[in-house]
């Protein structure tokens, strides 16, 4: 099918875009278009107007410093994935971006667009929540910062209000005593994952686990994280502790059955992947605390 008719605006400044959006509540914002254009073609979305922000140069940036990584609404997945300063500040970004769709999609799709598309089967919304990032929303009324925990309100539904454009996102830098890992199971590399898990594991000076938190995709309605620290009371990665962590995770998630996998299978994958990524993130933390590049 083809998209329904819409009027088209391609502003070159954010102010112009916000003014147009304020005047037309039924408009949609077009960035990379890798989710929006299929929705238009399938007529699941039929906005009156598209506001194409691709020529707003001020939204096309990636900046990283010791506090974290900030990226604009036009930062393509492929650009953020390969940004060396961003990778050093927060390695989980590039690890996760390598799992987002296929390279061809990553050339055009934007990370912030994926974040506000709010798909709980996508990697970057979950990563934003796991890292405790923020999204800046601007409108003709002003600007506000939304914490990742407040961004997701339902399936494919964010707390962005009418007239608001997500202009940039921020994620904190990774602490020196913390390691990251992400893994997922999909039918083909690049397809939507049946289940995916990312983890942050903090270690003490003796290398013992001090904190463990994991994020889950494709097994909840909105991007979810689970604190698994209590499973590691003695600080070791013993099989019993890893099994306890997997049990906590499997009790916390709420997978659904669909054509690709049953709920039980997805829950099983969540347990397996939890054990796997916690161990990998712990290894990463040990390497980082020893000053070895992960």
């Amino acid at each position: 099918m083809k998209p329904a008719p819409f009027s088209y605006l391609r502003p070159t400044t954010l102010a112009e875009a916000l003014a147009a959006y304020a005047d037309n509540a039924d408009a949609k914002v077009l960035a990379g278009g890798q989710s929006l254009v299929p929705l238009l073609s399938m007529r699941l979305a039929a906005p009156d107007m598209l506001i194409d922000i691709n020529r707003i140069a001020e939204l096309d940036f990636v900046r990283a410093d010791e506090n974290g990584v900030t990226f604009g609404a036009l930062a393509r997945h492929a650009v953020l994935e390969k940004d060396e300063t961003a990778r050093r500040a927060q390695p989980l970004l590039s690890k996760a971006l390598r799992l987002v769709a296929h390279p061809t999609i990553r050339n055009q799709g934007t990370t912030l667009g994926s974040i506000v598309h709010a798909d709980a089967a996508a990697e970057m919304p979950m990563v934003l929540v796991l890292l405790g990032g923020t999204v800046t929303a601007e409108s003709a009324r002003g600007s506000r910062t939304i914490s990742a925990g407040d961004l997701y309100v339902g399936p494919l539904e964010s707390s962005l209000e009418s007239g608001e454009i997500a202009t940039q996102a921020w994620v904190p830098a990774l602490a020196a005593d913390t390691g990251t890992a992400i893994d997922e199971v999909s039918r083909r590399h690049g397809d939507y994952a049946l289940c995916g898990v990312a983890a942050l594991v903090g270690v003490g000076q003796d290398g013992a686990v001090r904190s463990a938190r994991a994020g889950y995709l494709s097994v909840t309605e909105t991007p979810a994280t689970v604190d698994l620290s209590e499973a590691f009371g003695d600080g070791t990665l013993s099989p019993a502790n890893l099994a306890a962590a997997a049990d906590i995770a499997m009790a916390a998630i709420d997978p659904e059955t669909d054509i690709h996998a049953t709920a039980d299978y997805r829950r099983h994958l969540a347990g397996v992947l939890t054990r796997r990524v916690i161990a990998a993130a712990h290894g990463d933390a040990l390497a980082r605390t020893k000053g070895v590049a992960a």
Partner: protein
Amino acid sequence: MTEQTTEAVAEELHDVRLTVNGASYDVRVPARRLLSDALRHDIGLTGTHVGCEHGVCGACTILLDGAPTRSCLLLTVSADGREVTTVEGLTERDGSLGPVQQAFKDCHGLQCGFCTPGFLTTITAGLRDNPDPSEAEARDMIGGNLCRCTGYANIVAAVLRAAELGAEAEPA
């Protein structure tokens, strides 16, 4: 919105200039015209194939300023001023087959041929970034393209053969 306004919106046309395979084209299209349709219907280059038309199959993959991109996921107006390479642009200047095309012929990398244009553009860019892929890397390179004849073994062989042809053409 009144009914009248909606009709006016439907007819609004935009002037777009595209460079396709080195030639400049001016087209006048509605904002909803997908780039895949502009290439095929407005410009007449039917080598770009439309399979699923929602970004999954990869048949419509073109190079946008050199980077593989789904032409069915791009509005023509958004591509104004950009440089597009389609499968027609992969042949040599004298009309002979380019290295990736030749490798597909050598390795029987196509059966019905519908998916082939998307594979050829994707692999052309893939080999530019990684001129000497392993078999696993070759598989990864084509992971975003579907072949419903399921001729993947020969397509992977063609990626490796194209890398050989490229190395022969440009000795290190």
